[in-house]
């Protein structure tokens, strides 16, 4: 457009915007995006499809093979066939639920404080949270192991945490708090503070103003934080692998099992968890859409 004459400017000031050139290059980005979506989804599709794979009997326990024979639902019917896997799943849930609940309870307050108040130590708190999120899991996992080993060898107050369920739970709470805190903080910062003052002007005491006005408004942030903590806990491998002792969660069991080849039940359970995750996410999305449409 550097050669534009005065005439162009006067008669067609909007020409550069209003005449999109219909060239083939405009297809590059959409096609690329779709290709990326397919690439990102590919392993998941493989996982789902192979949960219906007919595995030729070899006499040993069933292991997934690359030869795909369509189709059987026998692995879905025998979803509980692998005992160790069931147990690992149970541990995963028994860790994830309390860990997410506790982390949400504690982390919500941290997020609230960071979003609402200015105080000494605020920047420091923000930085610790940032570090907790950015530090490589391998460092966090190894340092948590060092903590449990140290406690185990010195037994302060006669207390110690054996490596296993409890050490996994405590570690999961530790790394989840930061994620809940930032999720809630983001929500609190987006809040109109005049709403709460309005409530107080209308003779609501601070407690009532908080529970009737502020809390309902930040609730979506708290729910999102809880779900995030739940997913992080269910999915964690590296940190768990350091502190689990001989207790297996779903990820650590799958990791161990694949050295021999994965049993088809792994595909089945992977698909189940995936479906649940997607369903919850879609539900959240629809609900937030609806509340936005209402307001």
């Amino acid at each position: 457009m550097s050669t534009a004459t005065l005439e162009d400017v006067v008669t067609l000031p909007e020409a550069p915007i209003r005449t999109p050139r219909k060239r083939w290059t405009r297809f590059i980005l959409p096609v690329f995006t779709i290709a990326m979506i397919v690439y990102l989804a590919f392993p998941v599709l493989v996982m789902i499809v192979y949960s219906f794979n007919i595995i030729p009997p070899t006499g040993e326990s069933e292991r997934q093979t690359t030869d795909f024979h369509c189709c059987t639902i026998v692995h879905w019917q025998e979803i509980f066939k692998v005992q160790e896997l069931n147990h690992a799943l149970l541990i995963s849930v028994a860790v994830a639920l309390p860990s997410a609940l506790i982390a949400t309870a504690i982390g919500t307050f941290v997020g609230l404080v960071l979003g609402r108040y200015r105080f000494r130590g605020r920047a420091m708190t923000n930085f610790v949270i940032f570090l907790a999120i950015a530090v490589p899991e391998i460092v966090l996992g190894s340092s948590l192991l060092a903590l449990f080993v140290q406690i185990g060898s010195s037994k302060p107050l006669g207390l110690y945490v054996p490596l296993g369920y409890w050490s996994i739970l405590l570690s999961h709470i530790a790394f989840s708090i930061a994620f809940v805190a930032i999720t809630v903080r983001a929500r609190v910062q987006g809040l109109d503070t005049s709403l709460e003052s309005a409530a107080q002007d209308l003779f609501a005491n601070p407690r009532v103003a908080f529970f009737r006005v502020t809390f309902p408004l930040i609730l979506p942030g708290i729910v999102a934080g809880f779900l995030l903590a739940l997913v992080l806990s269910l999915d964690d491998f590296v940190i768990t692998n350091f502190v689990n002792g001989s207790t297996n969660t779903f990820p650590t069991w799958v990791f161990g099992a694949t050295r021999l080849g994965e049993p088809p039940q792994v595909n089945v359970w992977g698909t189940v968890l995936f479906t649940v995750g997607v369903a919850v996410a879609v539900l959240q999305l629809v609900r937030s859409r609806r509340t936005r449409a209402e307001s």
Partner: protein
Amino acid sequence: MGQAPPDVKGHIPQGVELPPARQGQRALERRRRLAAYLQLAPGGLYMVIGFIVPLAIIVYTSLSTSGLFSTGGKSVFSWEWSNYSTALDQYHDVYIRSIVYAAIATSLCIGLAYPMAYWIAFYGGQWKSTLFMLILVPFFVSFVIRTVQWNFILGTNGLIFGPLKSLGLVSQDFTVLRTPFAVIAGITYNFMPFAALPLYVSLERIDRRLVEAAKDLYASKAMAFRKVVLPLSFPGIFAAIILTFVPMTGDYVNAVVLGGPKTTMIGVIIQDAFLVRHEYPVAAALSVILMAGMLVIALLYARALGTEDAALAAA
């Protein structure tokens, strides 16, 4: 808990009788500060015990001698700097390899995620959030399972190379598993959302009128992108770099599932030193070196964008 924000004080007109909740602003201010610390206490305490103390113990262990490298030997603190020289002497090539892999994978992640995030943010229209959702959905599958699936797909006779080999397009002993290619491809895949999310958020925030203004001022499309969109998306790019590069460097799962002895990354070495060989002091030194590198990057980043923005981008 819910007190009026501090700026309200100035807005109370003279002679107006305050409702009871708004009386005694100064006392409230003091109480508010106390309330803030009280609410912060449980989370702060947990983060100190679950995060600061463990990191301190790691630093302490890294400067200790342990009589026996077996489980029985207790470590004794002795300013044992030799742990660091041992760690660096033995494993400097592994550190360099991890950094190189992570750098390549980070560039790939951003190179692939940027155009995608850009198109969705600028041209996605009403499908924006649905399209972006489609990108995130695969990551609802457990990290370990995803990596195992790639192992399955890229396997010697796997989904891709099996058919190619039976068609004779690829030689029979060809394999990508256990090569740097497989490891880099794996970490690129697994950390893609950590690049896509901040990029998308920063691109989506850009005011379209700025781009239009650039075009009104006779900037070509490419020029408008280079001079307006790209600089405004720098915070997203920074966030994407730190959110991918740092965890990639410490990766363990991809290096073990997709890699081999020649593609070992530092995460594998640390894990082995801790859990298999029980060489706690050297293992701790290896961790501290990795953490120090990460801390430098994080501090630079926090300096550039502020801690708040940094953590926000992480969300």
